[in-house]
């Protein structure tokens, strides 16, 4: 199979594609169309290796023409992994045509004889009337979720764990198909510094970079500890200051940062990190953040590193194995790919994976929204419920 990368004159006027295949961040924009290769990565912790191996095997059979050798040029795979190793649904897709903005220039990579022009707009799309999102229930009622949170708090107080993240979901329906392109545009506009992704129906805007690597250096950002935002600057600043000084949130954040550091220490020759957590302000909430940057001991791929880092304490808990068992027992639903690694990787192993947060699984006129909250010994169920309500509300309004 011939894989060819060419330089484009400027930003391509792309057609809309449902479901979209995309990654948009401050540094990288990758939009995919069609499917040249797809694999279900299966179950177990080996699903990351299996996906990577399959991508590598597929590349072996390709004749690659890429004079640029930039991050994202040449064949690129989009991948999205389930949170729980026991859950099916992990997937890797190589698009038939990939438009990449790398180092401020647009490139297009085609697999086979396809003409990329078929994905360029030739005429304006007529306006289609869309219905609003409508609530269709949840996997577990939020009263039951509150009781699960209380049970988790009891267990943490008894010393079984230090933190567990419990998620809940919202099912939505609409009388017309959800407009996924419009959703992507809204997410990019509303969360401009997040990682906006769309892989096999999982669409979201994550603030949390699990890993970025060029094969030699590695970066990650641990986010945990959340406060609301206010339209009034003084109140907003006070909320941020309270978050920075909150023992509960600082401890919750420390666990998340430590879980990232433990892994990165194993694979890096040198590692630097923020000395103290900083505030990461998003449209609807603000988080405590610690950024890590390191030099890898040996070259490693983004997918391998994502598999090693997942699940961090930011989305699982601490200790990891106990937290995962508690999630399985208490959460009352399968998270699917929510809170799992989602991102892209090129033939050199360069790539970025975020943690799939603030996201929805969308299929036609149906959607399933997810969110979660970190439970600590001094958590209050009503506060965690309110935190998840705000996060779900942000995602629901993006679908309107």
């Amino acid at each position, binding site marked *: 199979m011939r894989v060819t990368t060419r330089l484009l004159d400027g930003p391509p006027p792309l057609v809309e594609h449902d479901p979209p295949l995309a990654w948009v961040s401050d540094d990288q924009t990758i939009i995919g169309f069609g499917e040249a290769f797809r694999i279900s990565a299966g179950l177990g912790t080996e699903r990351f290796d299996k996906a990577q191996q399959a991508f590598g095997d597929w590349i072996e059979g390709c004749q690659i023409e890429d004079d640029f050798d930039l991050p994202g040029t040449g064949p690129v795979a989009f991948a999205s992994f389930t949170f729980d190793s026991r859950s099916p649904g992990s997937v890797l897709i190589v698009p038939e045509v990939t438009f990449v903005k790398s180092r401020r220039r647009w490139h297009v990579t085609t697999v086979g004889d396809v003409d990329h022009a078929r994905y360029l707009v030739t005429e304006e799309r007529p306006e289609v009337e869309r219905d609003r999102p409508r609530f269709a229930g949840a996997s577990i*009622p939020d009263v039951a979720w*509150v009781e699960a949170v209380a049970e988790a708090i009891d267990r943490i107080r008894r010393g079984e764990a230090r933190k567990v993240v419990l998620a809940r979901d919202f099912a939505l329906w609409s009388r017309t198909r959800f407009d996924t392109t419009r959703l992507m545009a809204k997410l990019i506009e509303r969360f401009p510094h997040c990682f906006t992704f769309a892989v096999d129906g999982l669409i979201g805007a994550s603030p949390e970079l699990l890993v970025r690597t060029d094969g030699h250096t590695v970066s990650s950002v641990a986010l945990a500890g959340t406060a609301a935002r206010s339209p009034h600057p003084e109140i907003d600043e006070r909320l941020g200051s309270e978050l920075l000084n909150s023992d509960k949130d600082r401890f919750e954040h420390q666990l998340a940062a430590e879980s990232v550091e433990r892994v990165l220490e194993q694979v890096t020759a040198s590692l630097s990190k923020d000395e103290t957590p900083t505030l990461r302000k998003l449209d609807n909430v603000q988080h405590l953040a610690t950024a890590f940057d390191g030099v890898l001991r040996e070259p490693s791929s983004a997918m391998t590193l994502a598999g090693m880092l997942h699940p961090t304490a930011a989305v699982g808990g601490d200790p990891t194995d106990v937290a995962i068992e508690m999630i399985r027992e208490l959460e009352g639903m399968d998270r699917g790919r929510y809170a799992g690694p989602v991102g892209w990787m090129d033939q050199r192993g360069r790539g970025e994976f975020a943690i799939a947060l603030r996201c929805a699984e969308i299929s036609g006129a149906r959607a399933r929204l997810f969110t979660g909250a970190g439970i600590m010994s001094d958590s209050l169920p009503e506060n965690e419920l309110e935190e998840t309500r705000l996060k779900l509300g942000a995602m629901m309004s993006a679908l309107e």
Partner: protein
Amino acid sequence: MTSEPNDDPTDAVLLDALEPEDDELLTLEELAETSHISTVVISMLVREGWIVPHPGPGGDRFDRADLGAVSAGLRLVEAGLPMAELLDLARRMDDAMDPVAQLAVDVFARFVRDSVEASAASTDEAATTLQRAVDEMLPATAALVGEHFRRLVVKHATARLVEE
């Protein structure tokens, strides 16, 4: 809000009138059993200010009004309203109604209590009259506010249906 001195002879009567009539106060566990709502959720409702327990020697106690409030909440949840949204509505209702409630107390103090105290022949007579006034006015207030809110909900629901 008007603040009355604690040694006012009618204070005790008014405080008594504001206490629940129900002698059969329930413990948290009894309220949970009677309402079929878990203690976890009831404790949450207490912290949220939905129900205000009466402190007792063996712990918090709840009266029939509390039972009515949690049962009404449960009916809404069972009818499909998510608890998180219900709590948000309750917080908004509290924010909106609290200043009105303070104003209502002030109006009572200035126009009912002051007037009764001015015209009563004795402190005992004033106390009796005030107790009767509270007994009449508190349920009347609840009915008035409840009905007014019901009408507002119906008005907005009707408008929404017409719009759609």
